[in-house]
């Protein structure tokens, strides 16, 4: 029962938080670059506008254009259900197993790639192809950093990992954990199409990954695709922040604890968003064919983390 309440709170919170997070990221960037910016509520206004438009679809597009956005949103919402964001109380039969979480995320990745192909244009295919190439190359880093996190806790269940870190904070600053966290962060930046892998603010064909896939979508199709991607970013930032700074998360269910959990995860995610935005100001997008080198680097970090934790132990 407690698990259900926490999952419900997480879903509702993140539905409200995700657009705000995007608004904050964009506004911080605008402020640093000396622009006025549009304020942090613009993503909300965009979604409302898109939902009230008649979508335009191609005659040759299939049900994928309709189902793809739903699949993406559902996969992102499932991330919000399963990840320990507000509390670490898992479902008995579906614990927050990191391998399951990665696979749930991949449902969204596949849905987005298929939507890109369904448009029947060169742009969609191009974005889809690049997106899947990056996703394929990110996978080893993701799973190896999960492996590294699982070794001190003895399980790949995320709620246990977070609780272990809460009980013995020295694990967090151990070199092994730092390596794994850096590797995971690079993998997550690639998965969520952020700089330096993809430039979220561009519509140039040489640089597009994510934008190219959703180019042919409109109206509510586009709205749900955007919401799904935002939710994914917010949930994964929440994961990173809870791995790095687990304090504030609810381990024993109580009303006050829940309120603390909600406030702390909101603050953590927004702070991490600001950090991400500040970092992105100083980064340029790397060439597509240099992305593998970056990912190979993060893979090496994750591999070091795993082997080091065996040798240290």
């Amino acid at each position, binding site marked *: 029962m407690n698990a259900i309440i926490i999952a419900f709170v997480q*879903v509702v919170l993140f539905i409200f938080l995700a657009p705000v997070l995007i608004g904050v990221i964009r506004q911080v960037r605008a402020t640093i670059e000396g622009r006025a910016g549009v304020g942090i509520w613009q993503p909300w206004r965009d979604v409302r506008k898109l939902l009230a*438009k*008649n979508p335009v*679809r*191609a*005659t*040759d597009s*299939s049900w994928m254009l309709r189902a793809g956005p*739903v699949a993406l949103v*559902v996969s992102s919402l*499932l991330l919000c*259900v399963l990840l320990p964001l507000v509390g670490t109380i898992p*479902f*008995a*039969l*579906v614990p927050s*197993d990191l*391998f*399951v979480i990665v*696979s*749930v995320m*991949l*449902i969204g990745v*596949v849905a987005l*790639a*298929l939507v890109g*192909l*369904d*448009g*029947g*244009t*060169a742009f*969609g*295919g*191009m974005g*889809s*192809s690049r997106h*899947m*190439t990056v996703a*394929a*190359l990110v*996978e*080893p880093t*993701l*799973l*190896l950093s*999960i*492996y590294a996190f*699982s070794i001190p806790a*003895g*399980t*790949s269940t995320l709620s246990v990992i977070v609780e272990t870190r809460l009980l013995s904070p020295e694990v967090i600053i151990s070199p092994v954990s730092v390596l794994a966290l850096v590797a995971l962060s690079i993998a997550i930046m690639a998965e969520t199409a952020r700089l330096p892998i993809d430039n979220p603010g561009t519509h140039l064909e040489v640089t597009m990954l994510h934008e190219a896939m959703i*180019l042919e979508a409109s109206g509510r199709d586009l709205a*749900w695709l955007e919401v799904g991607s935002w939710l994914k970013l917010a949930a994964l930032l929440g994961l990173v922040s809870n791995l790095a700074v687990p304090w504030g998360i609810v381990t024993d269910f109580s009303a006050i604890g829940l309120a603390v959990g909600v406030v702390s995860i909101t603050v953590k995610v927004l702070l991490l968003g600001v950090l991400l935005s500040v970092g992105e100001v100083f980064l340029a997008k790397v060439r597509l*064919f240099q992305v*593998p080198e970056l990912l190979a680097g993060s893979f090496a970090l994750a591999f070091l983390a*795993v*082997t080091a934790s*065996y*040798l240290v132990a």
Partner: protein
Amino acid sequence: MTGMEAGLLLQLGLGALAVVTALTAAPSLRSRAGGILCALIAVTGFLTGLGAMLGGTGSLRISITLPMDPLVLAPDRLGGLFMLIVSGVGILVSLYSMSSTRGPDASRTAWVAMPMFLVGMQLVPAATDSVSFLLAWEIMTLGSTLLLLADHASRTRVASAGIWYSAMSQLSFFFILAGFAVLAAASGGTSFSSLQAIEPGPANVAFVLFLLGFGGKAELVPLHVWVPRVLPEAPSHVSAAMSGAMVKIGVYGGLLVCVRLLPDGPAWWGIAIMVVGGASALYGILQASVSSDLKVLLAYSTTENMGLVFLGLGASMLLRGYDAQAAADAALVAALLLAVSHAAFKSTLFLGAGAIIHATGERNLDRLGGLGARMPVTATAFGIASLGAAAIPITSGFVAEWMLLQSLIHGGRLDGAVVSVAASVAMPVAVAVVALTAGLALLTFVKAYGIAFLARPRSIEAADAREVPPLMQLSLALGALFVLALGLLPGPIAALVAHTVSPNPDAAVQSVGLGGVSLPGIGAVLDPIMLVVLSALVAIPVIVSIIVSARRYPHRTVELPWGGGGSRARPRMQYTATSYAEPLMRVFDDVLKPSRDVQVTHVAESRYLVERVRVEQRVSDVFETRLYRPVLNLIQRYGIVVRHVANGSIHRYLSYSFVALLIVLIVVSL
């Protein structure tokens, strides 16, 4: 007579009946009658296998006059599981072939070969001695070779594929025969129970021979070279049976060696199997991901999947040696689940490819597209099977891969201590290999499904495609249903599978909740049905909101909404399978070594203007060009030299025999 005995006998009887029917039936009835009889053979095999897997006993003794042990067919639990796998695929394939076969694929020879192939495959796991094992193995190989060659007269590539297949099959057979011979010489018997206890010396030799033999059948690198030639050229229902079922017999052989005949090997055996398996997985999926030919793609992906199965098997052997029993059992069950799920999704995928060829005559993905709207049943079945191949949740592939990863990450440690340096290096490497393989498989099957079934048709044939006949649809739907059922109810299935290999199955795998699976020794739980319930709960508000807004803001359909900014975006401007894999091709340029040929034709008046550009790109198999070609060239050169010795002159041959006789006489007189 027990039910099992009746089942074994009935399979042989039905097989003989099917052969006679194929020889005598009129051409118009042949496919129907042959298909029904083959389906009956498969159903009998399925029931027999099920009985054996649940612990039923019964044996069929075939007495022979030769001075050796009698041939005994008596499947144990493990054999029963594999009978179940191959006959399950057999049912799908028989149903499908009733309406898919036409022309040379429905010839008398082909329908004689089909029951031979099925019966052979179903009896290999039932054998309890090496002689009947090898006999059934050869019946299986002979049947599949004949089926492959059905269309040799009109397509030259079939004949070449036939030669490769025969040569590689016989190579496998030779290694297995040699392996059994080594064991028999060391132990003095031919039945599996007497082959077990032997010295480490012959055991090592036998292990290497068996690995080569069964690895060749299971399409492992570097013995996989026949796969990209044979599976694409065979009729699609035969490719489905080969990839879905026959390859599993190779896996069964591997298990027979590792679990029953030589269970307590040194650590390097496990590592050797892991290396071969990991290399096969990576190489197979890399080739699959850059292939534009749908059937070549599926063929290479088979190498990948079998690589993963052997990776799990090797990990289990290695971990058992270090007494990490829980992780070892989980790895073994994961390997078996991978084999079961591969049988379901790969046979569906091959049958789906057959349906595409049936409807369009094309298997080149670059000329397909938009088939989803034209062939909805095929598209759905192929899509579900693709999700299985890409290991996406609620399909069978996902559960198996999850279990493999769980066993690997828990394999390096036992009670908080590192089990060995070898394991603590092997496990991370194995996880990385599985991860990269899974990532590339995702790309491969998004490409296969997305390019073939979504977007706009890239050729007239694809635009004119129609759905296939009902019987083919039925077997496709059945296959897809298997993929989903195995993914939704992994608990009971994994528990059954664990009973076939583990001495203490309840400690290894348990069924929890609604068909969920739990690994008690490792402490991992997965319940796909609960996952479905959770996603339904979060999906309902989204879907309701979409339905409501679809009422208020209906969509408009236009021919091309934006066309990427252009107004004349033609279907051939879409991304193709080749262009889809192009970034990957560049990333893995060093491994794949594609050969590119660019020809630019200039306009006659000016060199600055281009009239036409022709680009050709080919990816050849590195193992074939680097390993096999030199050997084949050597043999060919030897053949050319020898041709001078035997030039057809009868006088020369008479003088050869005279000289030979002289030599013999001299040797004898010495």
